[in-house]
């Protein structure tokens, strides 16, 4: 942002001397915008169109109808409370953990990082089930409270507070992921300088560290905010018994309603949800205005804060308690369910077996096919998003004008809509992109691929953009003046600096695409089953024991992959870069 003015002058100078170049540049801009419009906004507009049409004539009746119902406003109010509450919780937890991992000397950080990711990869139906059992009348929390004096009751999760808690816990890893690299890149000299000039630790944090970390915090916060907004599983499970509706569940209720007005009403509510999402995005820009970049650093993983042995132990213990409850507890609940022969039988040795695993991996052929489909889909989605998303982020960083901002808004919407609605938009768009012409995309694996890229691209854009924001524009200039040409400049100087941020985005896209459920459940077709579709199918048929067996293997696989990655990167650091970790 700070680089804007000199950039502008520079561009004007160049543009006036190369008017032809300028024209083609504008042409590229228009073409790019058009492509993005077709992929990202047109499907959504086809849905919005439905909110204005009744029997072929334009009407505002759906708006007047929906906006005049008290239920709508109650739902909007619930949504705002839930989304803001859970986003703040995710921000607090995410910033706290990333700050601790980045700065404080603790042992077992690598393992901690893996555990931080767990809530994010465990399917939300498992998370809700595990937590409700944990807090149930026969669960451990009630048992512990009964030892304490007084008449303490376990908190009721079937409430607004419960929804906020679980959404916050499920989405704080997003904030963590975006923020931790940013913290690592803040030059320690700044803090040292602040300390020598007499600033207290607190003031240093608020005056120096926070403004520098804002790009990551704003990006992570925005993604967490959008994820809280479109999440269906948690509010549906916890909100139904308490009659709490949020927009995502209310939209689903409309979609499954009958009659011609069902989709139109859902479209009106989706417009309201879209407005909230855009407001969040714009708020985030506003926050970023206060961020500063004043020099570029490589990320620096060595601790900056050393605690006394006692304090360190205490801190480590409390962190692990938190991680065990929020990450391991749902995983263990899931594992336990997957080993029993039927719901409700006591967890004793004679009731335990690997039969569910046997069925899922040997008897039924679908899960393994689905796993291979999902891995391929996730991998290719990641690659495409990596290239396109990073390119968009670069343009957004280089030319922060209206066009790139618009592009960012376009890309936010597909991620913010509830999965069901987004899938419907994909059908409207790709069944017959031009009326009367069916290109055969719909009903094959391609529609899933297009849907995933459209939905998750914003994650990569945010990841890469955060990385760019951490680079002082003078770096590129310096590279250019010292004669590094395009590719060399990128490979030698920029990419190593950008890598952690870009990698975070790619990892996120990969995991999201791998475990995606709601969009797939409407768009899959014979032969393109995904992991989410198989899990959803088992759940709906009442075979929870199978779905937990499959999910357990999936989560353990992700953990194993993460562990391998950490191990390899460590070896790489030691052998190749000769660094001591």
């Amino acid at each position, binding site marked *: 942002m700070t680089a804007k003015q000199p950039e502008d002058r520079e561009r004007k100078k160049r543009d006036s001397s190369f008017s032809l170049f300028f024209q083609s540049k504008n042409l590229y801009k228009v073409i790019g915008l058009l492509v993005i419009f077709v992929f990202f906004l047109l499907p959504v507009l086809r849905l919005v169109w439905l909110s204005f049409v009744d029997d072929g004539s334009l009407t505002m009746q759906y708006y007047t109808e929906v906006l005049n119902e008290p239920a709508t406003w109650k739902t909007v109010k619930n949504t705002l409370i839930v989304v803001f509450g859970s986003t703040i919780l995710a921000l607090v937890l995410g910033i706290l953990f990333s700050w601790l991992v980045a700065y404080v000397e603790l042992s077992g950080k690598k393992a901690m990082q893996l555990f931080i990711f767990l809530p994010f990869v465990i399917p939300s139906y498992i998370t809700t089930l595990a937590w409700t059992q944990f807090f149930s009348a*026969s669960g451990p929390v009630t048992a512990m409270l009964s030892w304490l004096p007084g008449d303490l009751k376990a908190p009721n999760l079937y409430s607004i507070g419960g929804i906020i808690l679980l959404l916050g816990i499920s989405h704080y890893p997003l904030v963590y992921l975006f923020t931790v690299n940013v913290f690592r890149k803040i030059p320690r000299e700044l803090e040292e300088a602040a300390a020598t000039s007499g600033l207290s630790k607190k003031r240093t944090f608020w005056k120096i560290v926070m403004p520098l970390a804002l790009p990551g915090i704003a990006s992570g916060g925005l993604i967490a905010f959008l994820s809280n907004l479109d999440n269906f599983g948690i509010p*549906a499970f916890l909100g*139904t018994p308490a009659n709490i509706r949020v927009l995502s569940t209310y939209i689903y*209720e409309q979609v499954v*309603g009958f009659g011609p007005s069902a989709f139109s009403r859902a479209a009106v509510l989706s417009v309201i949800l879209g407005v909230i999402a855009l407001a969040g995005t714009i708020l985030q820009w506003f926050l970023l205005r206060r961020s500063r970049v004043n020099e570029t650093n490589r990320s620096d993983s060595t601790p900056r804060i050393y605690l006394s042995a006692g304090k360190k132990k205490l801190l480590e213990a409390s962190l692990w308690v938190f991680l065990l409850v929020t990450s391991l507890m749902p995983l263990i609940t899931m594992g336990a369910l997957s080993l029993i022969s039927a719901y*409700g039988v006591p967890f004793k040795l004679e009731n335990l077996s690997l039969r569910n695993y046997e069925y899922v991996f040997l008897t039924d052929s679908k899960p393994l096919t689905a796993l291979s489909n999902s891995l391929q889909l996730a991998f290719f989605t990641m690659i495409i998003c990596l290239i396109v998303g990073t390119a968009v982020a670069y343009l957004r960083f280089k030319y922060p004008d209206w066009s790139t901002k618009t592009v960012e808004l376009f890309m936010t919407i597909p991620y913010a809509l509830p999965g069901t609605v987004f899938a419907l938009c994909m059908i409207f768009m790709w069944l017959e992109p031009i009326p009367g012409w069916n290109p055969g995309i719909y009903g094959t694996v391609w529609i899933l691929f297009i849907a995933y890229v459209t939905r998750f691209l914003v994650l990569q854009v945010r990841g890469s953009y955060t990385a760019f924001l951490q680079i002082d524009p003078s770096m590129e200039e310096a590279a250019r003046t010292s004669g590094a040409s395009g590719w060399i400049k990128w490979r030698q100087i920029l990419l190593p600096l950008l890598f952690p941020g870009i990698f975070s985005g790619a990892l996120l896209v990969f995991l999201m695409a791998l475990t995606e459920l709601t969009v797939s459940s409407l768009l899959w*077709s014979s032969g393109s089953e995904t992991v989410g579709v*198989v899990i959803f199918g088992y759940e*709906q048929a*009442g075979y929870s024991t199978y779905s937990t067996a499959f999910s357990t293997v999936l989560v353990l696989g992700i953990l194993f992959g993460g562990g391998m990655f950490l191990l390899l990167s460590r070896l790489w650091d030691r052998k190749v870069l000769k660094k001591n970790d």
Partner: protein
Amino acid sequence: MKKIFYGSAALCLTTFLAACGNDEAETNSSTKTEGVSGTIDFYTSQPDADAQGLVDAFKKQNPEVEISIFRSGTEEVVSKIQAENQGGDIQADVLLVADSVTFENFKAEELLLSYESPEAESIDDAFVDPDGTYAGTKIMATGMIVNTNKVTEMPDSWMALTDSSTKGQAVMPSPLYSGAAAYNLGVMTRQESLGWEFYESLKANDITITQGNGAVLESVATGEQNYGMIVDFLAARAINDGSPVELIYPKEGVPVITEPVGILANTENEEASKAFVDFILSEEGQQLASEQGYTPIREGVEAPEGLKTLDEMTILDAEAVELLETRNDDKARFGKIFGE
């Protein structure tokens, strides 16, 4: 689990026999399925393994037909078809989802083909659309599930759920999310013996509303709740697997959904679609349904162990057309009672 193995073993056996006695089967079956070919898109909400079993059995007889399955929840299948309709071209050829009201809805929008299958003659008229746009394929009653560890005296009436001694111990699926639950709501509120008062008493008795039948089973089997309203085959299967639950058919009667099947009007393969519908309703198709653990709808085919056959239960009934008309009002009224 055992049941599934036996079921699949039996399935293999029957398909094997069918394959051996192929000539016999062809002369016996009243349907003319020779020479049907091409592809059909089959959209269904049946569990995946069941849909696959059905398609495999059909393909044994009609090897020339390719069937691609789309399986999802009833609500997802319905919205997919509606979206395809908006998008300009419905892809589905044959549709099989939970309840008749859903079909009435598609019928009202003129999306269904009228086909009077000869096989439908052996099915009670109550479950077949007189205009031939859909016919039931199974009987799925909604009964009561009770946790046997917590409850010693088994109830025999729906009123057990409204009795003050069970306050806060019951659970039911939400009609706002599930079409089948909305159907049950429409039927039960139209009965003399139950009516809206029944639902008002349920609310007064602090019943928990949950997302779907699966969640009801989980919560009663684990003992989080003691009583629940649930579709019978899920409960029967849980009992077979060893869950500590009991399935009750209350004496006032039970609402049934019939998982009807119908053909979409703009099908590109009418012949194969008709052959497939015939097969589902035929003796063999119904036998298969019974092996998969469902009460068959065709007269003369036995129900699987643990479930009642059609003539053993009292059925609560209502006009599907009327239910469609009032569906949205019923849901709204339910929402009001349970305090949106």
